[in-house]
């Protein structure tokens, strides 16, 4: 429970007349509704080789191609409940850590860090302004959305949206200055939320979670059978709200019986119309080159690259 949270709690308390809590930290909310929907398969549109998803060994030795890593963090906690309405304190941050002489340093003007109070202003109009705090309206309330859990989810989603905004800002700035960078930017997650980034060759999105698998049943078997250093053929990922990107699955570590998704990442790159196979092989080699050092003790170390973990550790220290 940091000073920012306590400060916000006091500020809100002054307006609500709350006597405050017992001083203990409320739990973080960021896992709420994280994956409430069911895992699913999305039929792939392959653009490399045969229509069905296939395995390919990444040729050549891993090579260093990334110059920087981007990631963001978020943390949200309930400041207090005004009646049944939660008032949430949210901290979001994002950073690019660039590599110089094999060591990671903060890129550009430093990390972006924002702290704000999230609440539905409709329900709590007297809290629309809280001292010097940024108040983020979590949106109008209608019907049974006034359920406290639903309000919490909306707050968390608002925090998440703010975090993604920061990540997009940094990624777009990187892509805008791509000519000045010696290599590509590793973005933790997909590219598609920013059309500018999704169309740039200076960024590569690496997705660690596989709640949605871009494969049919046969394709799932292909993905599960990938050995370390193997990838699937390239497919195109499209959706109505997102810019189409090229994607493929890559096994970065030998699964060793740990499960079909262990050590598996999905890579997203811009669809630039170049030689797809060459592009996928090159980027795959870059990703395989980042398999050491290990990101342990993080439990996601099988897919979490050290550079991204460094971003998280950095943001934990500064936010």
């Amino acid at each position: 429970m940091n000073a920012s949270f306590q400060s916000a709690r006091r500020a809100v308390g002054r307006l609500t007349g709350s006597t405050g809590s017992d001083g203990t930290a409320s739990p973080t909310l960021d896992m709420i509704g994280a994956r409430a929907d069911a895992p699913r398969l999305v039929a792939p549109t392959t653009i490399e080789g045969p229509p069905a998803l296939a395995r390919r060994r990444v040729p050549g030795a891993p090579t260093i191609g990334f110059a920087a890593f981007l990631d963001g963090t978020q943390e949200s906690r309930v400041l207090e409940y005004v009646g049944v309405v939660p008032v949430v304190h949210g901290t979001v941050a994002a950073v690019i850590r660039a590599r110089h002489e094999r060591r990671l340093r903060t890129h550009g003007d430093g990390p972006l860090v924002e702290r704000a109070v999230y609440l539905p202003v409709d329900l709590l109009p007297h809290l629309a302004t809280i001292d010097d705090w940024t108040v983020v309206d979590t949106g109008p309330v209608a019907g049974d959305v006034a359920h406290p859990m639903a309000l919490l989810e909306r707050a968390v989603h608002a925090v998440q949206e703010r975090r993604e905004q920061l990540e997009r800002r940094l990624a777009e700035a990187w892509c805008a200055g791509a000519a000045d960078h010696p290599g590509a930017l590793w973005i933790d997650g997909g590219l598609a939320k920013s059309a500018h980034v999704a169309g740039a060759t200076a960024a590569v999105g690496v997705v660690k979670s596989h709640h949605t698998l871009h494969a049919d049943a046969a394709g799932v078997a292909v993905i599960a059978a990938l050995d370390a250093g193997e990838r699937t053929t390239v497919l195109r990922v499209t959706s109505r709200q997102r810019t189409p990107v090229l994607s493929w699955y890559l096994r970065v570590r030998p699964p060793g019986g740990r499960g079909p998704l262990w050590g598996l990442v999905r890579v997203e790159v811009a669809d630039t119309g170049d030689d797809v196979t060459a592009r996928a092989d090159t980027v795959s080699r870059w990703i395989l080159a980042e398999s050491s050092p290990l990101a342990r003790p993080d439990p996601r170390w099988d897919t979490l690259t050290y550079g991204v973990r460094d971003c998280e550790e950095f943001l934990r220290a500064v936010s």
Partner: protein
Amino acid sequence: MSDDAPVADAPVADGPVGRVVATERKPNTSHEFHFWTALDAAVGIGTIVRVVGSHPVAGQVPVVYGVVVEGFSYTDLQTPLHDVLGHDGSPASAMHAATERTEIRLYTAAVLRRIPEEPLQPVPLGAVHLAGDADVAIALRMDGYLQDGAHRGIPIGIYRAGGLESPVYLDADFLLGPEAAHLNISGVSGLATKTSAVEWLLASIFAHFPAERGSVAAVCFNVKGPDLCFLDQAATNLDAADRALYERLGVPARPFANVRYFAPYTTRGYALNTLRSHSELAHTVTPLTWGLGEVLDFASVLLDKQDVDAKSDALIDFITDRVVDREFSDPILETTHRVRSFADLADWFGDLLRGMESRNSEIWRTHHVATVRKVRNRLSNISTRCAGLVTDSGQVSDLPFGRFEDRAVYVIDVALLDDDAQDLVFARVVSKLREYLERRDLGVKHVIVFVDELNKYAPSDGPETSVRKMLLDISERGRYLGLVLFAAQQFRSQVHRRVVGNAGTALFGRMDPDELATPGYAVLSPAMRTRLSTLEKGQLMVRHPHFAQPVFVRFPRPAVLSGREGAERFPPAVESTLDVAVTRALRALDPAVTLPWVQDAIALHDEADVLRARRITEQTRPADVRAFFRAQFRPIIPATPPTPRGAPPPLRTAPDDDPYAF
């Protein structure tokens, strides 16, 4: 200290090199703090840093000075196994990893000083800077004795860090008294630079000791090899860096201008018992010989306490007080004695014992005949045990007590003497120094006595000896007299703790790890101990009353010829025949003396007489050396042919009828 060597105003390194950090597990205290630096920061064990607090306390931003005593480095690796896994067990592949793990350099520093001194609070968070000249002066509290008008700084060396070089000064009042005094230096032989450090420090003292605080001289006991035998000869190995250090510290890079050497004779007595016996230098060594009067007061040094009991002591005291150097008569004696030498004493004993035997008396003046015999035996063999130093004849050649000169070094070479003789030399010289200093007529106000191998003379265990008692006395009371002990040893832990404990200043060269494992070094951090065990020649760790923590300094090579080089350049002469030895000795006084002349002069005389004549001549240094030398021999009556006697008278013949005549 010269006027132009006050606190220097060299620029302090710009920009912080670190930041103070504190955690609940590793909090800062009023005496210790932690800070991190960039990986390439010029910070290491022994670096002096300045912390500038972030917030004022009582209206003043606190500034804290510290010296790094420990360093840590670690990464975000939780277990080494993760690194092995990450590189598939192949160290070679680790070299190709795209990213190096995040690594920290975390240092622990001990507080040297804080400004303001009160309130005494834990070290604040803040930026850490390398200390510049002015910072070092403040941190080590040197500002008090380097300020205008103080003139008490004695340069001990240069503190170096991050491209900065700052002179470090000792306070003369705490090095030579009266506030504190004495210096002790430890280190392994050959690597520890003990002798070099003392030679350098003496040069520094002679250059900077303020005249208004009186005169100073040094008495050095050369106890091993040729270490101190060439203090008047210029070094041949000074490089530009050494000369720069001399320049920076304001000490002339030249050998001692005024050095006097003393050495006893060899057992045979032909030559002086010193490694400074090369023909070019031998004439600069003054004989050191003592007679009965000089030795008797220190007989206890040579006598075994288990053997010489109170009864013997009483007789020795009687002889010292009533017999030596005065007319002594007694009914039991055949003649009146005036005992001036061991030979005279032997005569006195002989006369006394004969008298007791003739009277069949077992007691003389309360002394039993057995005690008399025992004391005679013990005293009479002193001149044998210390042959070359102690003379039967009573000839005396001594240090110039009462005429000591300012900034002079008096080297007494006892390296080739046996232990008893060394002890005797040490005991008597130190006693005489003390005696003269008490009377304030030594000739100088302060005397530095340098003794190496202190663990031999003042061991932490073993029987109580006169020499150890003397060293304890100097270390505990010498500073009031101006008698200052500079002592060196390999193992500080093996020296009597009151001797080392009373040394206000302590220097440490490279130390033996086993020695560093002894309890006396427990106050040092493991990193400091490690650094001590790897110090290069020319580096020292210095403890001084003004320094809250030890600091590391570098000093230049001495500007004098080292013992080893000196022995190569001036190889000692082989002890020659009597005539050659006498020729060498006399030629130093009169170059016209030749070997044939000497051979002719001594041809008819005993060896003892020749040696006595030489000693007297050397001591007297007459204008006409040859005449004086010849005059020392007793005249020899020339042989005359026998007078022919007349023919013997004829025998009387016997009568023929005398039957009994035959």
